[in-house]
């Protein structure tokens, strides 16, 4: 929610009409925030009430209070920290590897045009392939532990990163490239002084997509092979029909994924401001 920055001395800076306008805008944004929170509360309340009065079967739908109890139990047993830690570590690791490796490969493909033309169809096909199909291969090659999960997450996020970043690199304005040429810039200088800086917004957008992709990959990986993690908790909960566990883990997952996305959005805001990008 954005409030006017110079709120304190409104009357000094703005006309009366503008102040009314700002107030109306502020009121509107407050209403929206309240509605957002309200929607969640009403949903939880309804869920709880329907479960309490046995309108829905809380054995298969769980309920907010049962989820809370489950949460407390998980925290007390020290299990929550362990599972969250493992999943988080897998996601963050694959996120960093995918971003770094993806950008690096995109740079190489930008640099060597012939290599790009040779590899392009392969990358496009690998990107289109449903990665879950690689599950058995990954298990056999990487074992049934964290490396397999990270590989799965990478399989999902890497090709998208390469393709998005590369297309950003290739769409640098011709006239800007001409400028670098007229100044006698080397390929390395063109990369570091023009292509990379002008693509920072693109790269950050790729990060945003990657956050989602890496979560998908990690949970999918955990479904396939793991002995721990939130994905494991969900699959396990499903197998033994503990819907409380499934719902609680899913909710935690929601919060974590949202939080990570928010961090990247913060980074984007910070970098945009620093680099003067709108």
């Amino acid at each position, binding site marked *: 929610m954005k409030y006017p920055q110079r709120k304190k001395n409104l009357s000094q800076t703005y006309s009366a009409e503008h102040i009314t306008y700002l107030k109306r805008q502020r009121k509107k944004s407050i209403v929206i925030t309240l509605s957002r929170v309200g929607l969640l509360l009403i949903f939880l309340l309804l869920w709880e009430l329907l479960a309490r009065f046995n309108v829905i079967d809380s054995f298969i739908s769980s309920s907010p209070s049962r989820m809370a109890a489950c949460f407390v139990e998980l925290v007390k047993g020290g299990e929550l920290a362990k599972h969250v830690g493992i999943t988080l570590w897998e996601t963050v690791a694959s996120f960093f590897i995918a971003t770094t490796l993806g950008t690096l490969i995109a740079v190489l493909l930008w640099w060597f045009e012939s290599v790009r033309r040779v590899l392009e169809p392969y990358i496009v096909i690998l990107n289109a392939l449903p990665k879950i199909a690689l599950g058995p291969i990954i298990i056999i090659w990487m074992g049934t532990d964290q490396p397999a999960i990270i590989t799965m997450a990478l399989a999902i996020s890497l090709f998208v990163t390469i393709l998005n970043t590369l297309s950003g690199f290739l769409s640098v304005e011709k*006239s*800007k490239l*001409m*400028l*670098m*040429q*007229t*100044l*006698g*810039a080397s390929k390395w*200088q063109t990369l570091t*002084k*023009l292509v990379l*800086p*002008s693509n*920072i917004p693109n790269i950050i957008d790729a990060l945003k997509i990657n956050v989602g992709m890496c979560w998908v990959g990690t949970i999918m990986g955990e479904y396939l092979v793991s002995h721990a993690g939130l994905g494991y908790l969900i699959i396990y909960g499903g197998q033994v029909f503990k819907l409380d566990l499934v719902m609680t883990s899913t909710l935690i997952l929601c919060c974590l994924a949202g939080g990570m996305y928010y961090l990247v959005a913060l980074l984007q805001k910070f970098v945009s401001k620093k*680099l*003067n*990008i*709108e």
Partner: protein
Amino acid sequence: MKTILQMQKVCLTYHTQKNETTAIKDLNIEGYEGELLGIVGPSGCGKTTILSLLSGILTPSQGEVLIEGERANTHSGLTGYMLQKDELLAWRTIMSNVLLGLEIKKRKTPQKVEYAQQLLKKYNLYEFKDFYPNQLSGGMKQRVALIRTLVLEPKLLLLDEPFSALDFQTRLNVVEDVYSILRSEGKSAVFVTHDISEAISLCDRVIILTNRPSTVKEVVDLSPLKDYTPLQRRELPMFSEYFDKIWSNLQTTKEKSNEIPAT
């Protein structure tokens, strides 16, 4: 007068998968030190190609392009290229945009930075040195682009329709500014345009090109206008005479081109 640029029997052919296009053929041009040389011609006649040749970005298929007797190349530092649009980098401040060329050429010394500051001061842009390009008007940005070129201290400036992206009023003022900057720095320049009145208001001599493959059709000497600034020139009765002369020349090239369809 000392010759600064020579193009001798220059030919240039572009190759694409589908066909080859001869952009210029047997072109002979000479430019002198301190002269503002205009090149006008029908659109698509290879004006930008000529500047690319002079800057050394392109090498001629045949013939020689010499700058101060040396074969044109991008590393000599003899030429400075100013593009159609300012092409300032949005993430760099004005100062850092001005220094871009020096950074690339690895010539960013304290003296050069000092020189850049002087130029910014001289042309009333110093107070904006920490601003970003999007905070400046189009005319100001174009002046910054010119300073970015001047900082490299080129002997010969190559201007590729540098005002075409500006609105008319800004354009008149920026032409005036650029003219006075070029004169006060004592630079030689080649100025490419399709705007006849702009060529007359800025140049000492105008070369009219034929249609593609282009060669020199006519040279118009504008030295009688030498003591007038661009805006003053527009007021002179001679201005429209020159305009008619150049325009009729361009017209005849066009008629000719209608008979022989361009491939």
